[in-house]
C-alpha cells in the first residue's frame, strides 16, 4: 500500500500576513480517499487550490503523482481532475456544450468524446437536460453536471471540494456509489472536503480535521471515533460518530471565538450536546 500519490510537506499559505494554511503535512496513498474536514474558513479550499496549481504556496512543498506543484504545474494538471466548491460551469452554454468543452480542454481522445458525454449525463441523470442552457438549471443540477464533468477525462487523482453540497438524497447516493466504484475499480485517489460527516465516514479511508489552517488530528474514521471519550447518550446511539469527533476537536476553538454570530450559535449547540452527555 505504501505508495503515496500525494505528499504534502509543511505546506503554508499566507494572505497578506494572515495564515490561511499553516504548515500542514499529509500523504495520500494510491486508491485511497482522504477527507479534509473542518469548519468554515479552516483552509480546506485554500489547500486544494494549492494542490491543483491555482494558488502558489507561500512555503512548503506538495508532490502530486510525483510532480512538484511549483516546479512542474503542467505535469500536475495532467494528472488531476477537480470539482470546485463554487459553481464553475459556464451559464451561457448548454450542459452538453460544457461537457464537450471540458473534453477538448482536457484532451479526451476524439473517438471517446461522444460516448463519455453520454455516460456522464446518465451518471448524474441529466440526459433530458443536456440541451438546456445552464442558466436554466437548478443549483443541484448544476452541481451534478460539474461533478460529472470532473470525471470525464478519467484523472488518476481527483479533488472534490464539497462535492455533494446541495444535492438531494438520491443524487448524493448515486455520487457516493460512483465514487466508491472509481476507487475500487479504477484505483483513483481522492481528496475530499465535506461538511457531511456521514459522507466522510462512508467514503474516506483517512480523515484529517483542520482548523485555523492547522491539522488538529488525523487517522482512519475508526481510530478517530475510538480516540475520544464515549458520548453519554442512550445505549442505542452510544457509539461515537464522526460527527462527535468533529465537534470534540473543533468545538474548543469555536468556543474561544464565541463572539462571532456563528460561534454563538455553535456554542448553544455545543452546550446542548454537553448537557446530553
Amino acid at each position, binding site marked *: 500500500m505504501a505508495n503515496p500519490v500525494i505528499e504534502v510537506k509543511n505546506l503554508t499559505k499566507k494572505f497578506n500576513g494572515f495564515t490561511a494554511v499553516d504548515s500542514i503535512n499529509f500523504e495520500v496513498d494510491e486508491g485511497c480517499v482522504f477527507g479534509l474536514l473542518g469548519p468554515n474558513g479552516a483552509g480546506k479550499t485554500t489547500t486544494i487550490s494549492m494542490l*491543483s*496549481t*491555482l*494558488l*502558489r504556496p507561500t512555503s512548503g512543498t506538495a508532490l502530486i503523482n510525483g510532480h512538484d506543484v511549483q516546479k512542474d504545474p*503542467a505535469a500536475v*494538471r*495532467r494528472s*488531476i481532475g*477537480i470539482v*470546485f466548491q*463554487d*459553481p*464553475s*460551469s*459556464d451559464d*451561457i*452554454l448548454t450542459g452538453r*456544450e460544457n461537457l*464537450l*468543452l*471540458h*473534453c*477538448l*480542454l*482536457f*484532451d479526451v481522445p476524439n473517438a471517446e468524446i461522444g460516448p463519455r458525454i453520454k455516460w456522464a449525463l446518465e451518471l448524474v441523470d441529466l440526459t433530458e437536460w443536456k440541451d438546456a442552457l445552464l442558466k436554466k438549471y437548478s443549483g443541484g443540477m448544476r452541481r451534478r453536471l460539474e461533478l460529472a464533468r470532473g470525471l470525464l477525462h478519467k484523472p488518476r487523482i481527483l479533488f472534490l471540494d464539497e462535492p455533494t453540497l446541495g444535492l438531494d438524497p438520491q443524487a448524493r447516493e448515486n455520487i457516493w456509489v460512483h465514487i466508491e466504484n472509481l476507487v475500487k475499480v479504477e484505483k483513483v485517489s481522492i481528496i475530499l472536503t465535506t461538511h457531511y460527516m456521514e459522507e466522510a465516514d462512508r467514503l474516506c479511508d483517512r480523515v484529517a480535521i483542520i482548523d485555523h489552517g492547522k491539522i488538529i488530528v488525523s487517522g482512519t474514521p475508526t481510530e478517530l471515533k475510538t480516540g475520544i471519550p464515549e458520548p453519554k447518550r442512550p445505549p442505542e446511539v452510544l457509539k461515537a460518530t464522526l460527527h462527535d469527533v468533529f465537534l470534540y476537536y473543533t468545538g474548543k476553538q469555536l468556543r474561544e471565538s464565541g463572539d462571532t454570530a456563528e460561534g454563538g450559535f455553535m456554542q448553544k449547540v455545543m452546550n446542548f450536546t454537553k448537557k446530553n452527555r
Partner: protein
Amino acid sequence: MRELKGLLGLWYRELLVFWREKSRIVSSLFSPILWLVVFGGGMGTVSHVEGVNYQTFLFPGILCMSVLFSSIFFGLYIVWDKRIDFFKEVLVAPLSRVTIFTGKMLGGTTDSLIQGAILLSLGLFFGIHYSIFSVVAAMLILFLLSAALVSLGLMIGALIDSLEGFNLFVSFLIFPMFFFSGALFPLENLPGWLKFFTFIDPVTYAVDAMRGILLHLNRFPLGLDFLILGAFALFFISAGTWAFRKLK
C-alpha cells in the same frame, strides 16, 4: 495536438457566446453608423477632402474605429472571467497559458471581424466601390488591427482586476488612439509634436491602408502599412501572452 484541441475548444466557446449575444452586433453597429450618417453626412454637405466627399473619406476611418472599440473592449471579458469560477476550470486544464491566450484572442478577433465585415458591406451606401482584391485586402487589415488590439485589451484585462478600473484605463487609451489615427481628418496639417503621436498609434497605419485600398488615398506605401501593423500585432500578442503567464 493537445494544445491545438484546447485552442479549438476555447475558440468554439467564444463563438458560441458571441452567437448567443447576437444583439451586441446591433448595438456595436449603432455608433459607427451614427458617425457616418450624421457627422459624415453633415460635414459632407460643406466639405470635400482630397477630391472625395467627406462622408466617403470618413468611411475607412470609421470602419477602423469600430474595430478599435470592439477589440479593446473585448478585454473586459477577461476581467469578468477572472471573477467567475468558470475561468478556474480553464486554468486547471493541462494547457499552456499561450494556448489559453490565443484561444481568447482568436475569439475576440473573430467577433471584431464579423462586425467589421458587416460594416464594410455597408460601404456600398457611402460611395465605396469594391473589387475582390479590395475586400480581401481590407479584411486582412482589419484582421491585423483587431489581433493587435484584442491582444492589447486582453493584456490590460489580465493585469487589472476591476471592471471600473478597466473602463477608466481603456478610455484614456482609446480616445487618443482614435483621434490621432487620422480617422476623421488628413494628418498632414497637424503640428510636428502632435504628429509624433500619430506615428506611434497602430490605428494610423490601418486607417491609411484602408483609405489606400478603398479610395487610393494612402500616405504611406501599402506594403509599409501592412508591415508596421503586423509588427504591432506581433508585439501586442507577445505582451498579452506575457500577461497571461502571470495569471495563476
